[in-house]
């Protein structure tokens, strides 16, 4: 990213210089330009850039100070130079150097000949070496995702809590009120010396009844409104029973961070969830997929926490970091599901991802900002602004049937370039009336294709 931006910046600087140069003589101009050019190049390929180049070209196998898939790079250049060998030639074509019997090449006991040639300039190589030679382990700061909630409980049950507190308070008020009344009559009895008949005693209930009787209209209107509100919200809440609420983010065995993987490192969703395009399940990444990268990457970007979590992957995979070998003792990772589909619903990821072309974000939200997997909400998704991605805006709560069929009534079937739909289209043409009604807008909604039929999802 950084590297790209700088490249973009270059012409601007040049332009400015051109503007300045109009006042200068050609000779001076040439000199100025050449200095500027070299300065720019050296500036470009200096330490700042070394990091990016390292990440881009080397980091999948090498680490600055630790052996990974390949050996640590710190001090490598010095070692080669001490032997009088050409490290640049090695980078560009390791096998040749190895075959030629170059001393430093032979000295590498680490997967001899395992590295493929990397096409970078000597300057870029220098920048990388400068970066790794000056690299120091980062200061450890513990800054893992903080919005974690204890495993498997609901996080937004506050309304229920307030309801209970309110209930208790109103009960207390009524109770105190009653006690006050009792005391009042007890006092009155003592003062007046005559007993007040129980029937004559004003109780709380009687008082409220009396008040209600006097304000019949108000009470009936209020009662009606209250009933409506209770029924409406009650029904609304009941509809969501069994639907996991927005923000549900249980504690997971590994504090996986989506924002680092999908966000910072821009790993495609389907690299890890690779069955989403092929199967009904998107698939939780299997440990061997994690190990594709984490064989080499064993430290978090900023702190001990990440390193600790990555160690859990190594433990699950049975990977011995010291020996850089698999022990064969594996331990599956037991993730907590955040989305749960009832048994009587059939949902197929590949239908939506591959055939329908629905963006992952349309159901899962902006995963690039997440820590561990969590549930997004309809509103949150509607407010997402994603470049070049079309989000279908919906209103019903996420993962309810209403939400499913709302989308089936909104989304268009992606019929272009699909011979299956071409065939169906040909058949539809024979029924002119139906053809007209369906194809009026030139588009076919999922519903028009039977997307609201029970047996499309329930069998």
């Amino acid at each position, binding site marked *: 990213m950084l590297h790209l931006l700088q490249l973009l910046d270059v012409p601007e600087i040049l332009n400015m210089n051109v503007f300045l140069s109009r006042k200068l003589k050609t000779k001076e101009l040439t000199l100025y330009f050449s200095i500027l050019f070299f300065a720019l190049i050296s500036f470009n390929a200096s330490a700042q850039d070394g990091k990016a180049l390292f990440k881009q070209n080397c980091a999948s196998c090498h680490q600055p100070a630790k052996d990974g898939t390949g050996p640590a790079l710190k001090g490598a250049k010095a070692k080669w130079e001490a032997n009088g060998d050409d490290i640049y030639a090695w980078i560009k074509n390791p096998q040749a150097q190895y075959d030629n019997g170059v001393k430093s090449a032979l000295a590498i006991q680490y997967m001899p000949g395992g590295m493929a040639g990397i096409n970078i300039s000597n300057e870029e190589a220098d920048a990388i070496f400068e970066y790794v030679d000056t690299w120091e382990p980062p200061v450890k700061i513990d800054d893992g995702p903080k919005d974690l909630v204890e495993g*498997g409980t609901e996080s937004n049950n506050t309304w229920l809590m307030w309801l209970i507190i309110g209930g208790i308070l109103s009960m207390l008020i009524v109770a105190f009120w009653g006690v006050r009344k009792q005391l009042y009559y007890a006092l009155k009895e003592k003062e007046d010396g005559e007993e007040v008949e129980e029937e004559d005693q004003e109780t709380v209930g009687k008082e409220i009844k009396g008040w209600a009787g006097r304000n019949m209209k108000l009470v009936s209107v209020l009662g009606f409104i209250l009933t409506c509100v209770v029924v409406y919200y009650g029904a609304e809440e009941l509809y969501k029973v069994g639907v996991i609420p927005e923000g549900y983010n249980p504690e997971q065995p590994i504090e996986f961070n989506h924002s680092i993987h999908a966000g910072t490192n821009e790993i495609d969703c389907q690299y890890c969830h690779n069955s989403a395009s092929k199967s009904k399940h998107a*698939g939780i990444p*299997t440990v061997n*997929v994690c190990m594709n990268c984490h064989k080499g990457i064993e430290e978090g970007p900023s702190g001990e926490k990440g390193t600790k979590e990555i160690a859990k992957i190594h433990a699950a995979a049975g990977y011995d970091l010291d020996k850089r070998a698999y022990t064969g003792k594996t331990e599956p990772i037991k*993730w907590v599901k955040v989305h749960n589909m009832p048994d*009587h619903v059939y949902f197929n990821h590949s239908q939506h991802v591959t055939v329908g072309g629905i963006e992952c974000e349309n159901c899962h939200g902006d995963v690039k900002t997440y820590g561990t997997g969590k549930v997004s909400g309809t509103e949150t998704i509607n407010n997402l602004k994603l470049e070049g991605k079309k989000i279908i805006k919906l209103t019903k709560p996420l993962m309810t049937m209403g939400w499913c069929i709302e989308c089936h009534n909104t989304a268009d079937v992606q019929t272009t370039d699909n011979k*299956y*739909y071409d065939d169906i289209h040909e058949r539809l043409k024979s029924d002119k009336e139906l053809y007209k009604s369906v194809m009026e807008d030139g588009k076919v909604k999922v519903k028009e294709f*039977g997307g609201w039929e029970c047996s499309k999802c329930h*069998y």
Partner: protein
Amino acid sequence: MSKVKTYWKGIEEREQSASFIESTKNEFPQDLPAQEFLADEQLAESSTNRRDFLKFMGFSVAAATLAACESPVVKAIPYVNKPEDITPGVANWYSSTYWDGNDYGSILVKTREGRPIFIKGNKSFGINNGATTPRMVGSVLSLYNGARLQMPMAANKKATWSTVDNSIKKALAEVVAKGGKVRVMTNTTLSPSTDAILNEFVGSLAGADAKVVTYDPISFSGITKANQESFGKAVVPTYNFDKAKVIVSIAADFLTNWLLSTDYVTGYVANRKPENAWMSKHFQYESVMTTTGSNADVRVPIKPSEEGLVAAALYKHITGGSVPGVSVPQEIMDKTKMAAQELKANKGAALVVGGSNCSGTQTVINAVNNALSSYGSTIDMGNPTNLAKGNDAEVETLVKEVEAGQVDALFIYGVNPCYTLPNGDKFAAGLKKLPLSVSFSQYADETSTHCKFITPDNHYLESWNDFAPTASHYAVAQPAIRPLYDTAQAQESFLVWSGKASRAGKNSRVMYDYIKSRFTGDWNLVVHNGSVTYPSSSLGDASGAGVSPFSGNLGTAGSHIAKKAKTAGDFEVIMYQKNGIGDGQQAANPWLQELPDPITKVTWDNYITMSRKDCEANGYNIKYGEKSPATVAKIEVNGKSLELPVFMLPGQKQGTVGIALGYGRGGNQENIGDSAYQTQEYGTHITDENGNKQLIGGNAFSLTQFVNGELMFSGVAKLENLNREYPIACTQTHHTFMGRTSIVRETSFGVFKAGDKSNFNPAHQLSTHEKGRTVKKDIQEFDLWDSHPVENVGHRWGMSIDLNSCIGCGSCIVACHTENNVPVVGKDEIRRGRDMHWLRLDRYFSSEEDEVRAKALANHTKEFSYAKLEVAEDNPSVVHIPMMCQHCNHAPCETVCPVAATTHSNEGLNQMTYNRCIGTRYCANNCPYKVRRFNWFNYPTNSRFENFNPSQFDMGRMVLNPDVTVRSRGVMEKCSMCVQQIQSGKLEAKKESRTITDGEIQTACASSCPTDAITFGDLNDKTSNENKGSKIRQESEGVRAYHILEEVGTQPNIYYQVKVRNTNEA
């Protein structure tokens, strides 16, 4: 029309017995037990009053609501190392081969996340052309039988492989040192590698008297012996049913249970299509009505002792000469006359087969076939099968040796002699005393519990194996799952004890390497395809016939037959195999136990089949229902007796009774699976005073006997009526059609070939009055509702069932069970009429009522009398009709559902939505086809099903199809036309951007049908098959296509094809 046919499922229906009429009035025969509950005296005394009740209820509702508010924590556990070829949620298919000593076939195994969940025939490769039997389809459940042994056993105690191996090797060394007797008792392995391994094992015991003895519990050694005598080759030849224009079967159930039935059935059905120029004619002579007999054009009931006489009669008719020593009664000569004429007329395209294990009868059959020039045409001796290697005489010797304790080491592989031998108890007593006895059984069963060691074999779905069913065919069985338990393949054990291999646990490649090293050719291809067929030129005898001239000794044969024919007694008994249970290896498989027998429609039981006249003469109940039980009889054969209920079977030869083999497993309470024992009301096992569980039926193998070194499956029986009632779960009176007659349509080949559709498949018309005149209109023109727009739009899924091809075997029912998670409900629930089969096979008997009646009906005269008629039950003809949801375009069920839980899709499917159903059952009441099923219980959890419902077993749950909902209590269910397959088929096409190819999507029933009687496809597909339209579209437009109950106007998407019999009637 000179003859009127009546169709009936059972005599309960034919004679309209009182209980039958009552039961037909109720779609759901059981009332709710409200009366019982209210009549409970304690109820009146209980202190709960109405107010309390309301309080409890209010609290429960509140508590339930609150409890439901919490989201459950569900764990998801991905693979650590995902196998490369597995994608969670996507099925993998593996080709393999099934062989259990009885059934053979190339199969395809469907696995999900590594679990085998479905088996179907391999329609592309293999000699069975995709044909299966119910046992093959159901065998996937046997993999998950919780009673399987999980480790080797020594003296019935858990042991480890190393100790067992060491002990066996040591004991073997001792036997070798003293030159003792070692015997390996196996079934016919069919496997060249296994045979080689056994030979290596025997060879490694130099010094000892070691030998392999092949024992086939269902013996065919009569055939091999006869062929040895007749042609010098002790083999079972290849029978080419596809070349036979006339087939005469003398008690051979060759469509489902006889030798390579999966091979024969496809050849047979190929010539039963009336659209062909000719249609084969099939005569069947038998005692008990079998599946094959029910499909015959002419079926003649005979006694078992007459089998030889029928063969001799045929010989006499055809050659003119008689079999020496046999005098054929005139009655039999008459009965065989027509068959003989047909055979003679089709010389060279005729085939006579016999089910008898008597070598004499088989020799005469050989002589008949020889006279008909069948060898080289319908019978191929040049390409013999490797079946039936068993030699009864050798087995009898071995049994005697074991009983006398003369064997030092006995290895028992693939057979269960203590159960299947005539004198299993005596054998068991001898077996116990042997110094070394090893069983490879997967269970601690009747035999293995008496062995010193059990070294459990892998299940066949966990094993590598190879097979050579015929000389020109080679097949490979590959595992579809890693061994579930610490078991080892028997072949590996033999190699280990021969010192030629070492144990490698679950990752063992011993058998794989062995087979691969012996195979020459493209190994990957043969594993992928499952089999390879070599050209006939590769056979040693390229002449094709490969037969030395017939040299059978008819004299000896005649004396055999004459001896057998002399049998005298009240009854003759024949032991036969049923399609579900077969020889009893899968007796603990609840799917197969619950499969109604194709003919009797009885589930979960073994019984004595008897003719109506015999039943009535001896006072046995002949009408069965929920409240009308069967009567128990005691049958005595060869001094051994069984107590079994008597079942009146139409078509049974008078004076004979039949008993199915394979029942009465677990005689000494062995743990072979809970489903193998009898359950009662509320699902508990029936136990005696000692706590012993009651068996299902009795072991009919104990009634067999060795006669002259031949295992006989028939004999003379004495019956005694015990006058004891016994509840019987028979589905023949369930789901009747209320006397409607437009169900079966059948005709004769002659009428069909004449081509006038109105004679055999007339359109149903209704009379209307228009402008003062009566006008007849086709039923399609009457609509109560608006039509669903299904024509031309998108897909319209439909099915066509050819009644000519359907043999009624029942594979489809088991396949449907497997694919759709249909619950097993057990005997008691079935007895109450609550079977859950989405697909059932209606078996209609039909009897011709003579011209007298036809005339009487036409003239309304009274000269007609029932008394003058033949007894309909003597020999009725049979029609098998697979019946499932008809997916009506005008579905009566859809209009009555109050909650719209059953609706119509624009693809023509009648959809059932479980989550919307509230269980009013209106739909089932309104369904004219009676195909809707109600979940009376939560079958996967209710304790009354814990002894047999596979979903209640930890391992049994593994077989559930993850794409289909497991239904809960209180909802309706019915055939969905495997909508999960339709949906996934469409999705595959969409993903690959292509149209759906015809035949690509298959329902479970269609894919398992051995005869391709069921065609499934898209009725709207006009472009497939070079613009001729999909196969289903062509069939739906054919002259034979009709709808069942067409007059109701339901307009189903399921078509039936008129049955055409090759009878002489014009």
